[in-house]
């Protein structure tokens, strides 16, 4: 049975970002770098969710969860629980900064 990309793109990218998250985490050489990377990724995820506000959001949430699982699994340096909490907090923080207009997005 052929894979229907248009039907299952959310699941497809779930696995893609899971692998990317895992590789990104194992590439990190220190706990500080692990935390900084996850904060930056969280900001990007917050931006993605803000971008999808009022539109189809669920597949993107799945994709973000995929990244989170991959990253937490691959995080060798640093505490996994702290990594997870930082990721969730930075998503919320990034989302709020965009919502309040502190960070402005440019449409290219």
């Amino acid at each position: 049975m052929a894979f229907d990309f248009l039907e299952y793109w959310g699941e497809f990218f779930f696995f893609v970002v899971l692998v990317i998250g895992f590789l990104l985490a194992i590439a990190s050489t220190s706990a500080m770098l692990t935390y900084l990377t996850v904060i930056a990724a969280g900001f990007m995820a917050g931006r993605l969710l803000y971008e999808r506000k009022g539109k189809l959001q669920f597949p993107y949430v799945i994709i973000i969860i995929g990244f989170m699982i991959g990253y937490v699994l691959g995080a060798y340096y640093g505490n996994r629980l702290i990594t997870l909490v930082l990721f969730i907090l930075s998503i919320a923080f990034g989302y709020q900064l965009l919502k309040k207009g502190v960070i402005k997005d440019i449409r290219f």
Partner: protein
Amino acid sequence: MSEMHDLKAKVKKYYRFTPAELRGLVISILIIGFIVSFREWGPGNEVMLSVGLFNWFNSSLLAALTLLAFISAQKIVSLQAGLNAEYRMSMWALSFGLLVAFVSRGYIWFLIPGGIIFHHMAGHRLGWYRYDVNYFALAILSLWGPIANIVLAIIFKIINGFIFHPMFQKAIALNLVFAVYSILPIPPAAGNKVYFGSRMLYAFSLVLVVAAAVFLWIDIPIWIAIGGALAVAVVGWLLYYTIWEKDMWQSPYAKMREK
């Protein structure tokens, strides 16, 4: 000839950078310089501040040249077409570039500092068949950025043939990598506008830029590199058409419409 005079006058009058553009350019140049010089902060894993700062400064100069060539080419051709190009830094893309540099320990350069926004110059657009800003025009104008970087790399390669210097090698590498990144269809990059302007043009230009980058990097004569890149681009363009684009007329959307 009159067109040249017109362009000269437009460049004289409108070719300038706004304070916001200058601020964005300076930040972009410093960050690109840092990414490029990431592995040159001392011997091995040791960090020597004086060596690092010197290399950062040198890399920033090269980044300035690369970015100015890219933006100037787009600005000038835009003026010719009655549009005004404005550079906008993307903090997201620059942050991602920095992150990639740290994670990969400087082995991977992610060089997409920002993008260009085109403004319609009402008076100067008079007489054009497509008066409004349109996707195809933006695609053509955006494409001049990566082409300018390829031309700059060719110039550096010619100079490097006479006076060998590691700085020229670095300038060639930077311009080629920058050209390849800028042709990617990621929103701040110029390739995004080319892709949405015309898929056929994108197929040609993507193969052209990547092939030119590969051929100019390997040790072959420049004229073979240019000719080879053009030949590969034509083949890539034809392949794209026969394999993919031709069948797009029977796309899922077209089939769905038929039902």
